[in-house]
């Protein structure tokens, strides 16, 4: 074993793997059985709790639960559950009520489509491979479809977002706010201020609190009659206003709760990243007379960009699963206005409509997977591997 082989430092991806191969051949002569014993318990656990259920779930989503004498059975009905969800009676619940967009809606849509087209054009000019181009076009079409749906349901008179649109709104608004807040707070705490440790501990707290508890706390706070902010509501004449009766009020309450809870996660990781960056470059920049903003923009931000993209990815994956907050804070109401996809699936399960529930869950899985894959390929890979 020479020294170069065991030299430390961050080794990413293929490098780890190469090292692994060389090392193990040289020394750890672990037999096939030993290697299997190390990894199979974990693989089995995942197979039993993720993969097999996923397959069974797919079957359930293609079937309808029938109560028969002495139990129940699943009757195969093909794609009926999905048809119902996307085009049939459940469409209003799942996708929402669509109306022609307002002028603002058209504007937003135009800007979004323009951006997508521009991205596609740039990829084409940069000489993307044919497969890459096909995948990109598919991604752009999906994104355009999602945008069209959002604009028609949110930025349209009489439109109403369904659970899919509401979940996407939670994710987009939540992640943007959490990221900006977390980054701002983390940056301030790297500025050598006395009392840092106090702020660090305090800022970390919300993440530890059970989402159910957060939901109740925000129910107390948003109570315009008995809540602590009552004088404030009274001053602006909102005493009789009830958050839970106004769809957007209720959604905002859910988003505020979510932001309150998850900003700490972004904060703590970004803080550690900022503290871990190379201080010499920063000092050099300061000596050269760069302004604080220039240093942040041109030195710190590029240095922590890989970490930024990863925390956003983690939150992206987790945020789509939101259920506790809307379920407790608003019971999904008014009507179905604050229901997320997970809650939608749970409510269908409670009414014993298992097929429909599995179909909603599968749609959620599809959306998360597409979002995560697109994000990894279009944003993260570009930043992490310059």
């Amino acid at each position, binding site marked *: 074993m020479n020294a170069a082989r065991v030299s*430390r430092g*961050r080794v*990413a991806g293929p490098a*780890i793997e190469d090292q*692994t*191969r060389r090392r193990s051949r040289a*020394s*750890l002569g*672990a037999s096939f059985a030993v290697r299997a014993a*190390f*990894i199979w318990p*974990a693989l089995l*656990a*995942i197979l039993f*709790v993720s993969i*097999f*259920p996923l*397959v069974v*779930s797919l079957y*359930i989503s293609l079937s309808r639960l029938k109560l028969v004498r002495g139990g129940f059975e699943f009757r195969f009905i093909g794609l009926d559950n999905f048809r119902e969800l996307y085009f049939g009676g459940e469409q209003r619940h799942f996708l929402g009520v669509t109306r022609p967009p307002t002028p603002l809606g058209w504007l937003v849509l135009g800007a979004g489509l323009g951006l997508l087209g521009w991205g596609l054009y740039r990829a084409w000019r940069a000489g993307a491979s044919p497969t890459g181009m096909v995948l990109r076009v598919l991604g752009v079409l999906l994104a355009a479809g999602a945008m069209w749906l959002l604009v028609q349901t949110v930025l349209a008179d009489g439109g109403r977002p369904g659970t899919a649109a509401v979940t996407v709104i939670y994710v987009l608004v939540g992640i943007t706010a959490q990221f900006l807040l977390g980054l*701002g*707070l983390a940056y*301030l705490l790297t*500025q*050598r*201020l006395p009392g840092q440790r106090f702020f660090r*501990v*305090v*800022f*970390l*707290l919300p993440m*530890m*609190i*059970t989402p159910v508890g957060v939901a*109740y*706390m*925000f*129910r*107390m706070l948003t109570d315009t009659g*008995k809540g*602590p902010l009552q004088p404030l509501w009274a001053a602006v004449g909102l005493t009789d206003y009830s958050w839970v009766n106004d769809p957007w009020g209720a959604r905002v309450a859910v988003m505020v709760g979510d932001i*309150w809870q998850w900003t700490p996660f972004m904060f*703590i990781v970004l803080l*550690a990243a900022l*503290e*871990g960056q190379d201080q010499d470059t920063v*000092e050099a920049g300061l000596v050269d007379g760069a302004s604080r903003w220039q240093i942040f923009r041109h030195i710190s931000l590029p240095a922590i960009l890989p*970490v930024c993209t*990863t925390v956003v990815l*983690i939150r992206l994956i*987790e945020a*789509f699963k939101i259920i*506790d907050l809307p*379920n407790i804070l608003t019971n999904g109401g008014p009507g179905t206005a604050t229901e997320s996809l*997970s809650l939608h699936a*749970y409510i269908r399960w409670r009414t014993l409509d298992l097929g429909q529930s*599995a179909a909603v*869950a599968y749609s*959620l*899985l599809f959306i998360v997977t597409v979002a995560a894959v697109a994000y990894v390929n279009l944003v993260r890979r570009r930043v992490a591997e310059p």
Partner: protein
Amino acid sequence: MNPLRRRSVKDLPPAGKLAAYLVLGGWALVVLFPLYWLVVTSFKLPIHVNSGPVYLPFVDFEPSLDAWRYILVDLRSDTLRPYVNTVVVSLSSSALALLLGSAAAYALIRFPYAPRVGVIALFAGCVLLAAVAAGLGVPPAVAVVVAGACFALLAATVGRRFTRALSNRDLAFWVISQRILPPVAVVIPIYVLFQQLRLLDTRTALILTYAATNLPIVVWLMRDYFDKLPWELEEAAVVDGASAFRVFRSITLPLSVPGLVATFLIVLVFAWNEYLLALFLSSADAQTMPLTVAAQNATRGPQWWYMSVLIQIMILPVIALAIALERVVSRGLLVGAVKG
């Protein structure tokens, strides 16, 4: 901070300092006020809550221990049972996840794996075969045995001819990507599975499920941690004739205690607060605290004073953990893992 440190160009000007403190203080207020309200409300009587907001104990209202007495004394067993459930379930599931996950993470760093794509496809095909056969009325045990035999036969004959193989990195990515799966998409089959095993509404069911759902996090964090450990010690042990298990148990694990502790804490908080899976898999006996708290609304309407007590006893241990975690995280455990 070193008082003798020379004034650095990094120090903010006074005005900037003030602005920074205003922002930090503002956010601290946003974080702390809901918690303060939670604490204060738990010392209120119903009349103090219902007559509009009162803020300061002893000044605005006379604090009372009624709500605490009700939850901790009058409802003793109703509070204790879910609490014990939560403690047992989260501790055991986290320990299990840590055990399985760190073994897998270690293996993915130290041993080469090359599962052949063709063999994986064969395996999936045989599983599918068994499922279809079971669906067509073949007894499940027979179907599983036949499919297993088919797989063994094919893997031993055809399997050797496949050359395309996955790498450790692919395996690790696959394990970690399991986190993408929304629990709601898999929970119904899990529910049916535990129902068949007569494990529904038991702690065992929750422990197994939580351990499996938290595995990806453990693999992800520990893989990075193990990768940074010095390799020479293990090598010396192997030269001296220690087995792989022995090396893992006596050298790698003791060296990774900080990483193990931090990962354990993170997973523990996830398990402690978990709501969706508990909602499906437990009803009365194995009920955990998040469910108890959530159920308050349905049974008694918004009785904020009782709810505040329950939420507090539930979050106190994790707040203590948060303070512990802050030290560990600021040493950069998370960042190493997040960079990759």
